């Protein structure tokens, strides 16, 4: 179980996370939603020890968490120029020689012999996902994994996550697309004002939708009218 207690993170004087608590269980997919700038990525980077918290505790199975137990897919992934997809995955195979690139690529269908520079956003995401998948780690963190993916890969990714869940992995997913989370997550946390303001079990997801839609402005019609036009 991944457990976070009283987490405080700040960038200079700006407090981003303010005493955040939450838990993610093994064998579950936990979703995190929140508005832009609410601190989702900061939270994930802190779990991965890329940001030092001012205060708080992050543990996995009652031990302080170490990055080597985490496979983390970032929103934007970095690739060296003029490196092919196959070469990128070779790096992961150095540590994990059992990862069968050919078989996995039959699922994702990437042109591995080409430069990664020539890939689309979605293809780059698939390649990075294959890399972190090969690590076979207990905690899997995916920041906006569905961004840029086509419909077919969206479904494939969901199915892979469901299989990983059945293998008792602890999976954390953020997304702006609520529907992608509600279809796979066992619980979803709502991050706002630096804390997990609400959490919802699958049966309560309709309340989450109501909560998120309440932020829509009532007078959008008037604003759009104000744009003028022909």
């Amino acid at each position: 179980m991944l457990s976070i207690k009283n987490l405080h993170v700040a960038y200079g004087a700006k407090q981003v996370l303010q005493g955040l608590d939450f838990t993610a269980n093994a064998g579950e997919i936990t979703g995190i939603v929140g508005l832009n700038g609410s601190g989702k990525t900061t939270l994930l980077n802190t779990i991965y020890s890329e940001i030092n918290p001012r205060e708080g505790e992050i543990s996995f199975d009652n031990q302080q968490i170490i990055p080597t137990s985490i496979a983390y897919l970032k929103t934007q992934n970095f690739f060296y120029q003029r490196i092919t997809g196959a070469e990128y995955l070779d790096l992961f195979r150095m540590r994990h020689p059992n990862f069968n690139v050919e078989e996995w690529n039959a699922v994702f269908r990437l042109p591995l012999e080409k430069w990664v520079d020539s890939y689309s956003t979605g293809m780059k995401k698939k390649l990075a996902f294959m890399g972190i998948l090969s690590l076979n780690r207990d905690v899997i963190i995916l920041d906006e994994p569905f961004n840029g993916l086509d419909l077919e890969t969206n479904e494939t990714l969901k199915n892979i996550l469901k299989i990983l869940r059945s293998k008792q992995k602890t999976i954390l997913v953020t997304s702006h697309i609520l529907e992608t989370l509600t279809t796979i997550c066992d619980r979803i946390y709502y991050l706002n004002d630096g804390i997990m303001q609400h959490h919802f079990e699958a049966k309560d997801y309709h309340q989450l939708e109501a909560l998120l839609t309440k932020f829509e402005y009532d007078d959008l019609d008037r604003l759009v009218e104000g744009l003028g036009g022909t």
Partner: protein
Amino acid sequence: MRILAEIGVVLFVLLMLVLFPLAMGVLAQLSDMPPMLAVGITLAIIASIHLNRQDKDFVKLILQRPFLMFLMEYLVLILPIAGWLVYSRAAWALLALVVGVCVVAYVPVTVKFRKRERPLWRFPKGFTRNYEWISGWRKSAVWMVPTYLLGAALSGFTAAIPIALMVLGLITLDFYMDCEPRIFLELYSRNAKSFLRKKIIAHVGIFWLACLPLVFLFLIFYYEYWYVLLVVMFVVSVFPVLSITLKYASYQPNIRLTQNAFTMGLMVVFLCTPFTQPVPLVMTVIYYRRALKNLRKYM
């Protein structure tokens, strides 16, 4: 001011101390050069910049006469040469330079190479851990191969191979500007010290291996100048050590360390200038310690 803040006042003063005599040296060389030759070289450089710049379409969108903007930029660039031509009373050469720059700035052509989507040949699988070299080599092969071949072809001249080795070393400095994802560090090695040690040994080794044919050629023709080669090989071997330690001293996952280009340039100037060579060596030790400290945050 931002660059000054990044390098610090001490380094800035040292830089000035080194650059001033260098600038004087360049001016002394220029005074022996025929003015028209200097104009020709300057125009060739300006034309190369102009034909390769990729912002022409964008500038066209925001300016009615992009030609004027290009012209202003190039006129600023040629100011030192123009000043020297005025000083040398070479009026015709000055006129030729200004007219030449006007013509170059007016050319609406951009050279675009067709991009390949896959490599000509693959590196062996185990070599992929040297991703900086794979990526760097493929980006810079267009410069590295001619330099290498030219060095070998002109090995009849004493200075050809040492110069080629220096140029090759300088080209590799750019290999270390990008910071890899954090997971790459972990895949390479489990702790900071062994990571740095392995990387430095591997990359100096690759450079030495690549240069070996040139080294042998030099030794065949000029065995009596072995000490020159020793000095050159020492200097160019410091390049990757310095680049690697500097890279990891300021490492943050997934960023390009553009600010390091200036520091690296400065170190190269020190390394190639008499009496200042110890500065980069001391800095390498300092950067090594900083790199270890910084990497421990990520490993």
